[in-house]
């Protein structure tokens, strides 16, 4: 079976990196070979490369820049090993992109290779971010992202939350909104991601496979 490339895109602060790190662990638990590529060169904080050491221990490859930095590097370039992995397609790949349209501009250099392979493009949505808070705004963001990549988004991840202040109703209301987006765009909701305590309380009617999120980039005291 051909390995898959999962491309994680979305608005700034929608939870892409937390999802990418958790998704890498999930694939590894399913005994799949996984390589996580951190493509975020627009913002030097809260990037998935910060989890490099703990992910490597789990047998997950992490590629970002050629210096294998964990924190603090603010240089807008990617390791050529990322293209190598995409071309050779020996592992499942997660491409964790930067936020908004500017964050996915780097994907263009891989356009041909991605197009020829088995890929998914997941758009992470937190409907409580002001710029993705309505059906129209989410669709506008989706269109902008697709125009930039030149490929269509294949699924939504509902990651709507207020962090520790989230209520179950917040998640249910977000589900209603995203369902409407899903119907209008014909793009399915793949996962609904939240902390374990919320996932346990979710009613059956909520769309998307339940995805338990363990926060790793955001420490407990924050």
């Amino acid at each position, binding site marked *: 079976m051909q390995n898959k490339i999962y491309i994680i895109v979305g608005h*700034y*602060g929608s939870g892409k990196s937390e999802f990418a790190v958790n998704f890498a662990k999930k694939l590894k638990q399913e005994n799949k070979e996984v390589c996580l590529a951190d493509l975020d060169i627009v*913002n*030097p*904080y*809260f990037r998935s490369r910060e989890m490099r050491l703990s992910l490597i221990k789990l047998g997950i490859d992490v590629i970002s820049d050629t210096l294998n930095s964990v*924190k*603090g590097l*603010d240089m807008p370039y990617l390791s050529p090993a990322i293209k190598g992995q995409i071309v050779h397609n020996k592992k499942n790949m997660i491409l964790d992109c930067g936020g908004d349209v500017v964050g996915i501009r780097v994907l263009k250099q891989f356009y041909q290779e991605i197009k020829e392979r088995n890929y998914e493009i997941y758009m992470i949505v*937190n409907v*409580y*971010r*002001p710029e993705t*808070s309505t059906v129209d705004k989410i669709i506008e963001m989706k269109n902008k992202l697709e125009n930039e990549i030149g490929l269509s988004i294949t699924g939504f991840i509902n990651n709507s*939350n*207020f*962090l520790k*202040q989230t209520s179950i109703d917040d998640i249910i209301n977000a589900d209603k909104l995203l369902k409407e987006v899903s119907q209008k765009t014909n793009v399915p909701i793949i996962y609904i991601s939240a902390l374990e305590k919320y996932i346990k309380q979710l009613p059956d009617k909520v769309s998307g496979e339940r995805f338990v999120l363990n926060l790793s980039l*955001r*420490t*407990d*005291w*924050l």
Partner: protein
Amino acid sequence: MAKVMMKGNEAMALAAIKGGCKAFFGYPITPQSELPEYLARHMHKHGGVFLQAESEVAAINMVYGASGAGARVLTSSSSPGIALKQEGISYIAGAELPAVIINVMRGGPGLGGIQPSQADYKQVTRGGGNGDYYVLAYAPENLQETVNVIKEAFDLADLYRNPVMIAVDGLIGQMMEPVDLDVEVPKRDLPEKDWATIGTYGKREPVNVNSLFLDPQDLENHSFKLAEKYKLMKKNEQRYEFVNMENAELVIVAYGTMARIVRSALEILKNEGINVGLLRPISIWPFPEKAFKEFPDTVKGILTCELSTGQMLDDVKICNNGKLPINFFGRTGGMVPEPEEIVKAVKDMIGGLK
């Protein structure tokens, strides 16, 4: 507007718009660049001006000009950029102009790093520019408090005709948090800006905005006048929070992100039966010296915690006036401690006191 999830830099930008800011001049620098980026997209919708200047020095002088014409003005930067702006800040203070300045602090000295830091404490509270002046300075610990204080800052700047600085570390600029932008903040009774250089229309005498006083008597008079103003700020604007002070055997003094970490440490200590309080300065100039007179008698020592090698420590020493033993714990250069490291520093100090 209901609660929304925002990134610190975006929330600060929107708070400025809500605070009536009509002009922004700045220059990008990590970790605050989303702030000008947000204003570039949104300022015009609120009838304001956004301009990316050619440098930090140009930006702060544009702030001087726009403020002199009576506008509510903002600039933002991060540590080395704020250092570049110091000359202009001194001129603004000297000319008694209102301005709001946001400093999203990163590691130093020099170019330093891009991770969070509180190593600008002295630059902020002692003034990096020349002359006898101070800026009113706040160091909030979460996005809601940051947003509230920025909205209030424009009134405070107009009231005192003085720069107001909001000093947060890079983590507060970069993190996500739920925030309500429409929480009411105290409003000040503000006088007319009859000093603004907006033309006489033939109806009044011309006014000057200026910080040059060549006659030493004039300059002394001006400096004494400023000093009176700073005295008033010290009297009226000290702001702080106490946490868990009842029966505390030790008080930790910490602000901003460090105070958040200390809060977690206090919980751990409480579970182990160790009672420690927190004094959290919200205004760092004026430093909350009043708070030191309110410590309960149970307090046997003070632990100062900062994301620096020890800068606020000097103010703690001044306020303590030799009364209690003081220890220091700090991480710097962009390193952020875990609560357990604070717990250890507390235990070490308590062990030493016994």
